[in-house]
């Protein structure tokens, strides 16, 4: 079991390389400058312990975080939770909170599959999305890239890894997996917050 590390938070200025990578990942997924779109929540904040989490904060929130940091403390969470940074591609697993916010400001979906109610139910129990459940696809889907799972009501219910790209999907059989479940909002109910967050946050 890895040792528990102290949680530390850094602004983009302090971790510029990491910042560049996250910005490029966000642009690649959403096809837009997210920091500009979500203004005034435009400042990236990295908090690292066992995992590196990324937040978008306003200058007002950043001011509060700075006061905390001066007394040797860090926030448990703050602002818009962008997602978790990881060591291999895709480097950033975006949160449903971010996706909902971006799509609502953007007024359209990107890298998204809309699924039927019958497909959404098992997805919310941690299952993958099969071709038969996909009602609509919003480009672009990239093989092994991030894809958002949206219900017929337009809300984002989870994030996954696409196993196909836009063009391949039509060649799949109805029971073939299109999206591998990475995170779904049913996780909150399955008690997932306990074991996962234990490792995830100090």
């Amino acid at each position: 079991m890895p040792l528990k590390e102290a949680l530390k938070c850094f602004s983009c200025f302090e971790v510029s390389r990491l910042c560049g990578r996250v910005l490029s990942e966000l642009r690649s997924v959403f096809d837009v400058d997210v920091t500009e779109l979500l203004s005034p929540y435009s400042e990236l904040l990295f908090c690292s312990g066992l995992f590196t989490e990324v937040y978008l904060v306003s200058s007002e929130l950043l001011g509060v975080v700075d006061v905390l940091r001066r007394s040797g403390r860090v926030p448990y969470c703050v602002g818009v939770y962008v997602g978790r940074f990881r060591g291999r591609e895709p480097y950033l697993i975006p949160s449903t909170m971010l996706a909902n916010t971006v799509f609502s400001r953007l007024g359209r979906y990107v890298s998204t599959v809309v699924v039927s109610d019958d497909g959404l139910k098992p997805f919310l129990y941690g299952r993958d999305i099969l071709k038969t459940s996909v009602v609509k696809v919003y480009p672009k889907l990239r093989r092994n890239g991030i894809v958002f799972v949206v219900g017929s009501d337009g809300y984002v219910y989870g994030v996954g890894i696409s196993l196909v790209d836009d063009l391949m999907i039509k060649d799949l059989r109805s029971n073939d997996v299109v999206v591998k479940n990475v995170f779904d909002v049913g996780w909150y109910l399955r008690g997932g917050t306990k074991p996962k967050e234990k490792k995830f946050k100090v």
Partner: protein
Amino acid sequence: MPFPKIDELVKLFSVDVSERARVLASRYGFRDYMVERYYMMFGDWDVVEELLKSFDRGLNKVVRCNTLKVSNCGYLVERLSRLGFTLRSVGWCGYAFEVLSEGFVSLGATHEFLAGMYYVHRGLATLLPPIILSPKPSDRVLDLAAGVGGKTTHLSQIMGGSGVVVAVDVDRVKVRALRSNLERLGVYNVVVVRMDGRLVPEVFGEGFFSKVLLDAPCTGEGIIQVDRSRRFKTDVVDLVRASQLQYELLMTALRSVCSGGYVLYSTCSIAPEEGEFVVDLVLNDFDGVEVADIPKIVDFYSGITEFGRSRFSDDLRRCVRTYPHVHGMEGFFICLLRKL
């Protein structure tokens, strides 16, 4: 003046239990000292019995439509109705709905819940503190004992997602749930800090916030409907310990708010020892604070000024109380303070 010694308070809070109180306590499954105190509050055994009966009736849950994510709450009501729920709108809160009957699935397991379209409150009274504090988008608000975030997310909703809310709680499990509620409800003007609330002025400095909400940890004597164990699990010493923590937190809240700023103090308890007693001590001990008027959102009862051997400031009449047998909601004590 320091907080009185525990022994002195145990003596002050202890009551001589009458035979009538013993009989009622045994009939309704309460500790007899609690029933005697209810008589001291109301001075009428019939009213006491009404109160004890009301604790048996249960509470209607309340759905707070999350206007940060749902632009038309009618749409949410329609969706929940299709799932078999019967909802009734709350007259004094346009985005809240009492749940009159449950649907085919639990309120906490619907797709609508998971998508963050609503928050479930255990009763109506928990909606009151954020509404009374009524923060503006320009405010910097502290939620001093944030718990799982029912009031934090409500504050943020009232602020339209702007401004800053700092949510503080020391409990690791509650903070984890708070975070998931923020993510689910799409609330992003919040900084969550896991720490002992009493350290806030040392960390942020005095007067850092323009408004503070302190829904203090309490014995829960107002929510016996949802937790039957509270009929017999607290004794006078627990009551004293609760008031001590409440006093310390309220003093902290007043140090944390700026001059001209407001502190809303509330407890989900009808015990005067956790309400008027605490506020009265703080009014004596903290220089430059006054009790502010509370808008008449519901037909509140006034705060009390006499209880057993204690006499409180007349200003405490401006504080308000709700009772389950009168208002059909949790028993709450709410007091709005203004720092001069």
